[in-house]
């Protein structure tokens, strides 16, 4: 039963959806504060490289090394986000162009590949990696075994993150303030909220989440580093951005969407492994085509009234201007 295609796809949907979930949550935080960051792809790649470097470099026990790796990946992602934040918040550059610049700067032909080569990351298997944490017996339980108990720690941590971000936005005072900053920075400013500070903080947090999302690939899914990692360079960062639109800027729906897109990403491998003989390119294009289709459905339906989109998304806030 656990070999049935539905269970296998569901289990890998969770696995492949997790990096999307982290990156999507991060993008959601930045966008809720009114800043669009199209550089997710680049932040993920740098996070993946730096996370992998950490496990290779630090000779401590596995849990310590992995924890440090996640921390370093988050810092690396946040550092990338800082460049974007400075350009668009302080220097008021176009958010779209700056995000694209970040993708090119940090992306597959940029910093991540520079770092990977300079730090000699290529062609070595990971010294440590995230594996399943529940006993094998639990993993053999029908359906829930592989899907829920066969996952690594990063998957379970991501659930906590969804809960935390959800509660943060809806139930806390800083959360209320962020939402106000994204909806109406002028109103927030008049009420004494530090618009610039909130925007910086959430863009950086978004970068940290994207960095961890990238590390999911190099520490758990395919524990190695290859220049311009196929999985991430295959558009994970962009799908994460589409995910936020799909989720109407709600953390709980980001979870749903991440696993949906994770399933699209996992399907080609699964079907190929089952010996389905149609041209692999057709399967491989599935995630991209589905992303476009989902986006079209979402945009043309309810979202016509920009349901959920922060009203000030993409706009710089300048107080003293006439």
């Amino acid at each position, binding site marked *: 039963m656990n070999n049935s295609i539905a269970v296998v796809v569901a289990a890998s949907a969770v696995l492949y959806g997790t990096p999307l979930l982290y990156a999507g949550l991060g993008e959601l935080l930045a966008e809720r504060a009114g800043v669009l960051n199209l550089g997710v792809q680049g932040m993920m790649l740098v996070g993946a490289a730096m996370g992998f470097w950490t496990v290779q470099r630090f000779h401590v026990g596995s849990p310590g090394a992995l924890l440090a790796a996640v921390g370093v990946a988050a810092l690396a992602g946040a550092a990338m986000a800082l460049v974007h934040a400075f350009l668009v918040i302080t220097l008021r550059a176009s958010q*779209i162009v700056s995000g*694209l610049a970040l993708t*090119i700067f940090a992306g597959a032909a*940029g*910093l991540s590949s*520079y770092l990977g080569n300079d730090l000699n990351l290529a062609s070595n298997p990971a010294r440590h990696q995230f594996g399943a944490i529940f006993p094998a017996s639990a993993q053999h339980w029908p359906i829930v075994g592989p899907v829920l108990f066969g996952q690594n720690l990063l998957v379970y941590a991501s659930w906590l993150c969804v809960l935390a971000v959800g509660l943060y936005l809806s139930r806390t005072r800083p959360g209320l303030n962020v939402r106000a900053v994204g909806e109406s920075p002028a109103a927030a400013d008049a009420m004494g909220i530090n618009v610039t500070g909130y925007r910086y903080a959430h863009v950086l947090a978004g970068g940290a989440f994207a960095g961890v999302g990238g590390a999911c690939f190099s520490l758990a899914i395919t524990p190695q580093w290859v220049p311009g990692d196929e999985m991430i360079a295959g558009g994970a960062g962009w799908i994460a951005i589409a995910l936020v639109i799909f989720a109407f800027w709600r953390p709980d729906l980001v979870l749903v969407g991440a696993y949906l897109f994770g399933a699209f990403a996992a399907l080609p491998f699964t079907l190929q492994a089952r010996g389905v003989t149609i041209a692999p390119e057709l399967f491989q294009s599935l995630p*991209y085509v589905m992303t476009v289709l989902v986006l*079209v459905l979402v945009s043309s339906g309810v979202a016509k009234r920009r349901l959920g989109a922060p009203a000030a998304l993409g706009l710089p806030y300048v107080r003293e201007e*006439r």
Partner: protein
Amino acid sequence: MIRIERRLRQPRLLMVAVPVVSVAFAFGLIALVLLATGHDPGHTYGKLFRSAFGDAGALTSTFASATPLAFTGLAAAAAFRMNLFNIGAEGQLYFGVVGGVAAALLLSGAPGPVAIAGMCVGGAAFGALWALIPGVLRAFGRTNEIITSLMLNYVAGLLINYLIFDSHSYWRDTTSPSAAVFPQGKAVPDAALWPVATLTHAAGGVLLPLGLMVAAGVAVLLWGLYRHTRFGFELNVIADSPRAARYAGMRTRRKILAVMGLSGAIAGLGGAAQAGNFDHLLDPRGLQQQFYGYTGIVVAALARYNPFAVVVVAILLGGLKNAGFALQGADFPSGLVGVMQGIFLFCVLGGEILIRYRIRLGRQSHARGAPEPAA
């Protein structure tokens, strides 16, 4: 304290001076990156310049690298100017190669000029069609064109893989002996090879491909379109204020379709030029390793969407790319080209604030205010 004020007028001098200073600043930053990672910036820069523009051979390769970048840069500039963020020049260029090669194969036996014209039409048409998908979705479904055009790049890449590796398509060579060993594209007939002009005054002969000249022609047309036509006028209004455009009775949807189609056609024309001048066949792996489309965005943004500047910047970045390719190794770590492009972009983007705003280092008023005399 630092104060940022909007400038009432934007002096022409600044429009030129600021990007130049920004690029100089970028070179400084990149030198820091090189130093930090144990390279000698002076040495690297020297080699870089020599391999890009140092001799006739270097210039010939630079022009070759610049040709597709000029097209994708113009494609991005044409759309970005109207705030349509077509990130899909990459895929549209692939489609241009497909359309251009198909036209050349169909017209085998035709005289050169006919074959070349056919390739241009085929490439532009295929590129435009591929770009119209995100265009239609944006115009009629209000779907974000950034993400759709980007996703379609991946689909286009897989599609050309399919045409050569996994099918016996019209584009695949099934007859030659080498094709039996490894799948490859069918070469276009000799009549369809694009000519190359030799600039004789340079020692050794600098070769200027027809594609780059076509790109320069497209730049002139694009400038004329934006500056001198009713269509361009409408685009300028829509770009500045969509509400004003609607108020004036302009048909925004049609303009979105037209501009996306135009942008795709230019990228597709670049594909045809790439096939006609350099590749001569559909080479999926080769195309996808170059990131022509993405680099085109850098070109357009650095040129501030001015078509003439696009051609110039394309030659500069073409030189960088060509040098990066020639120097790969200890002198020039891979990935540095992307890092440099990114830093150039960041600096030019950041520098724009100096054009739009005046930055003043002012004293805080109350710091020098004399204490109020007691009443």
